[in-house]
């Protein structure tokens, strides 16, 4: 089996397609972000290079290639060199388990449209998400720069704190989908998205992944005003652009993961399956899968950019207490609510109890918002 060269060819093609899709996505995401931010701030944004400024990312890339690379004095040379690679590789390989279309018969063989459709997909996502902390910490540590050091430390503390809530969100999805394989989770959302069954969980997951990829309003590790870009302030040229690449690829990948776990992945909207005799369904045309996934990812990416344009960066102590005191207990409670709902529906043989999950979780989410609001208010009035 392993000596079958067509299998190797299939793997190579799938991983190349995934990697170059992410690289291309990164290139146009930088453009998309700058244009969208400019619109929201009533500016024009890049519009000179090519039609609508579409060639701007290529101009940036060419500029970065021709920049000098330097290593600060007393820096740990090997770690300094390895850190950008350690950051960018996890951001690429985390996409290996994400299915982009249903498993199909093609060229006389069964092809699953994920680089590796493993049965512990969610465990894989969790482990690779943890590994991506290393690159950032090592970059901060090896630079021999106090700002970089602080940025790396902050980033690691933030990422591991939010990883707990992330883990509980994964547990929620496994409970609902009854499997750890991402393909089976997508198939389980055939009748209903998990975002509808567990709306608070979906919002929570989105907040947590924003913190995981260090995006605004949780971009403390690279706070420009205090830390001059944090962990990558000593990097220049292509090494810097690798960090930049990793950040944007992580944005794309976590949007894909959010779409797969809560918004039906490559499947169409659940009520669209029967429209036009199933002409819009991925069961009939597998190639619609990537299109649906792309639409969902673009919408989620837009929400991320929108968030960046709207919210100011939150203070570091509040960020940590938000993670530990609000998100962790809230996600634990949501897991418990999901489990109770499933058992009730199962034991009492009534789907009605299953729908207590969204109702109770929305109520709990509103309660959490009220508690946060109240505690911030009382602090504010206490100080003045």
């Amino acid at each position, binding site marked *: 089996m392993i000596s079958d060269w067509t299998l190797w060819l299939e793997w190579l093609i799938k991983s190349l397609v995934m990697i170059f899709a992410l690289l291309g996505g990164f290139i146009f995401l930088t453009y998309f972000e700058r244009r969208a931010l400019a619109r929201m701030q009533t500016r024009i944004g890049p519009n000179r290079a090519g039609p609508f400024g579409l060639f701007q990312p290529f101009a940036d890339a060419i500029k970065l*290639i021709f920049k000098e690379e330097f290593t600060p004095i007393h820096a740990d040379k090997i770690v300094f060199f390895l850190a950008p690679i350690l950051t960018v590789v996890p951001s690429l390989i985390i996409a290996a388990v994400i299915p982009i279309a249903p498993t199909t018969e093609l060229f006389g063989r069964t092809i699953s449209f994920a680089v*590796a459709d493993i049965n512990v997909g969610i465990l894989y996502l969790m482990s690779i998400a943890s590994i991506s902390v290393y690159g950032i910490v090592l970059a901060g540590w090896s630079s021999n720069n106090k700002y970089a050091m602080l940025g790396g430390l902050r980033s690691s503390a933030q990422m591991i704190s939010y990883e707990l809530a992330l*883990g509980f969100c994964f547990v929620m999805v496994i409970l609902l989908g*009854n499997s750890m394989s991402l393909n089976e989770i997508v198939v389980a959302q055939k009748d209903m998205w998990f975002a509808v069954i567990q709306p608070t969980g979906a919002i929570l997951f989105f907040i947590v992944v924003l913190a995981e990829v260090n995006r605004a309003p949780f971009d403390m590790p690279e706070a420009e005003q205090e830390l001059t870009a944090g962990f990558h302030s000593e990097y220049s040229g292509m*090494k810097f652009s690798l960090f930049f690449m990793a950040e944007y690829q992580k944005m794309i990948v976590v949007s894909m993961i959010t779409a797969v776990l809560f918004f039906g992945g490559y499947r169409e909207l659940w009520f669209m399956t029967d429209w036009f005799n199933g002409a819009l369904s991925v069961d009939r045309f597998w190639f619609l899968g990537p299109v649906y996934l792309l639409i969902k990812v673009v919408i989620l990416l837009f929400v991320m950019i929108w968030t960046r344009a709207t919210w100011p960066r939150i203070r*570091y102590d509040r960020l940590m207490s938000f993670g530990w005191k609000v998100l962790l207990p809230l996600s634990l409670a949501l897991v418990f609510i999901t489990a109770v709902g499933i*058992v009730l529906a199962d034991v009492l043989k009534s789907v009605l109890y299953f729908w207590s999950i969204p109702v109770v979780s929305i109520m709990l989410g509103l309660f959490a918002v009220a508690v946060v609001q109240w505690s911030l208010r009382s602090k504010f009035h206490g100080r003045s």
Partner: protein
Amino acid sequence: MLEYVAIALMIVVSTFVALSAIGMGELLGPKKKSKAKDVPYESGMLPYGEGTRRIPVRFYLIAVLFILFDIEVIFFLPWAVVFRQLRIFGLIEMAVFIGILLVGYAYAWKKGALEWE
């Protein structure tokens, strides 16, 4: 197990992409050494002392708490997979587990381990 070979292949390919990006920069970028360029950037001030200095102890505390709770999250994963077979037994088991977990959590909160001031 064969799928993991595909992941290994993807790791190799993406490492190659990263290395070739750095290599391109090293090859095409200019190289003009100077003393001022080698100094770490600290907003124009001359840096004094080591760059990697002592770390506030809170970070260690967060790390220890993380290890504790993350292992508990990992225990949740297999439980969630077989939950529909265990049904009410699994629910009660997990309620006991969460109860013990919450005692530790409340203790950490009470002791001020979650404060960042």
